[in-house]
């Protein structure tokens, strides 16, 4: 099964980031890096972009960017 990307997760889902393409430096610099725990908080009223929490940082992320971030979904605790 292919690894899901951040764009696949519904609001409320939590996941661990597995891979971000090294050339997406902005995402990495913003704190979206391999190993970090993320939570999809909201999607915008028109469906795109998403609001994502990565560590202590709240990010606004377009779906096209989120689809490049591969994640491992975590079960609800």
């Amino acid at each position: 099964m292919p690894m899901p990307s951040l764009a696949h997760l519904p609001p409320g889902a939590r996941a661990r980031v597995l891979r971000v393409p090294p050339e997406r430096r902005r995402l990495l610099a913003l704190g979206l890096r391999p190993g970090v725990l993320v939570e999809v908080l909201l999607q915008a009223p028109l469906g795109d972009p998403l609001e994502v929490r990565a560590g202590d940082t709240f990010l606004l992320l377009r779906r096209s960017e989120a689809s490049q971030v591969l994640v491992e979904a975590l079960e609800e605790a």
Partner: protein
Amino acid sequence: MSCPRCDPPAAVLKAEERWALVGNPNTGKSSLVNALAGASLEVGNWPGTTLERLSAHLRLGEARVELVDLPGTYSLLPTSPEEGVVLKELLQHPPDRLLLVLDGSNLERSLVLALEAMELGLPMALVVNLLDEAEAKGLEVDLKALEEALGLPVAGAVASRGRVEGVLEKALQARVPEAPVRYPPPLEEALGRLEPLIPRALGLLALLGEGVPLPPEAQKRAAEERERLLAEGPDPYLLALEARYQKAQEVYRKAVRRKEAPPPLTERLDRLVLHPLLGLPLFLLAMFLAFRFTFALSAPWVDLIGRAQEVLAGWSLALPLPALLRSFLAEGVVAGVGTVLSFTPVLFLLYLALAFLETSGFLARMAFVADRLMQWAGLPGKAFIPLVLGFGCNVPAIYATRALSHPLDRLRVALAIPFLACGARLPVFTLFAFAFFPKQAPLVVFGLYLLGLGMGFLTAFLLGKALRAGTGEGAMELPPYRFPPLRLLLRLSLARTGSFVRGAGGPILLAVLLIWALLHVPLAGSTPYALLAQALTPLFRPLGLEDWRLVGALIPGFVAKEVVVGALGVSFLGAEALSPLGLLEGLRHLGEGLLQAVWGTLQGLAALFAPFSLPLAHEPTPLQAALTKAVTPAGALAYLVFVLLYTPCVATLAALRQVVGGRVAALSVGYQLLLAYLLALAASRVLP
């Protein structure tokens, strides 16, 4: 003094120093500059860019210190051209001290930037700002432990409330840190091999793929080492980032205690503001209020400036001087200065509204909601705001594009804005629409607004296609809601308005004087204006415009579009002479104007929530009657389309020059004239 690892001596204060502030965006760097040296805030541009540079001066005993606020950045390796300024400035003009501003409520990520900056070998001190927000999140930051862990002086601050007591003292203890991070072996070994050639900091940047200026030999070696790293394993950028995060987490664990705290207000507020159903209406309401605030509250003050202009012109006409000189003073100099000043109330209020939206965190939310709409034009969500403001006045809207971080986005939106039908075009629209299409006038005016919007979007879209392939990265941070430091906002808005007067005032004045000369200097029994208009008329014949007086009015329309109406009035009905004024009469006039402005502002505040009112049908004026004889409805429609699309006004042009540079601004004038002509030609064929 008590810090055991602070053995390298503190840098000695020189008579003239430059201190650079570096930090993540939204960490309150400008608040800190304001709190440390508020009264002397200056705004300018970074050399070779149109990016705003904020600085201030302060005195420390005998020494004079310039505080420079570098653009907010997440990493020294830039991810946008705006962030690129930081590294370039630090390498090319190393500051005497580097103050690294950290976000106390997001310390881990701030520390990553601090660790990166510590490689540079500059005297450094840290300022942990936003301690109030950290506290609200249940975070307790131990500044002493941070000093211990990093070997650098650390001050705490809440800059927005002026709590910056220890900052200057710690800045004076700034010292050159040791390299703080040990990178994984392949990276450290490569660095070791480069070390004899270039400093560690530069070697590191080169290995991570950043183009830094190096001697040719070092350049070659660094490229080889980078090739080898890329071939061997994971991307060196990821390696370095991971190592920095590990170190940052280690420092974080030593310095931060977490306590239980209720979820921050921001998260609860965002459930409402970004709500799937309520989000959009709330967003439109916020846009509407910002628009009303700027234009309703500035109108009375623009009127006052207009009245002062009348009075000064009246006084100039009463002077014992030759007639031509009197006219030069009254209708050239006074009118020119008045034109420049008439933009200042709008700009000041707009800067205030924008700075409020930005520092309060609302701007980021608005970008979030509007992002999907802007994706069609390949623009970031933030571009929505300048585009809406453009309907009020193009000039502040163009300055508002500075909130966009990518210069290409800024360029595209700035070049789209002149097509948006600003308030000054409305008088021309209503004059013609009611004269020629009395029944469908609102429809015609609405159609013109839509056409302008369409051309703006098309311009942005085509430029995007022409300049680069994909859409830019839209990822941005959503900062928490904050109550903005009002004094900083007032100072910033004043400084920015001043920068408009200095930068755009000259060109506007010059253009007004040129138009005056065209209208008033006698030439071959006529005026240069009439001769020029008559010479241009054949060009406009294909559009159905045969009357030179119509063509002529487009020339002063270059100063401001509403002037077109006045110019038509003068050439069709004869001049309405300005009358000389006595001293007392003029003063009384001014006094009345001031009272009206104050009253108008109060009314504007009260009416902030009232719906718009469009000036609707009125009796045909003598001018409208004269116009209907001079041109056919088809020609009138072509004229309207031309007025909508050709260069809006000299102030817009001056603003474009400041924001995108002179060459691009000049090119855009040609583009606007061409587009205006072609679409007017098409419009003249729509009606029989």
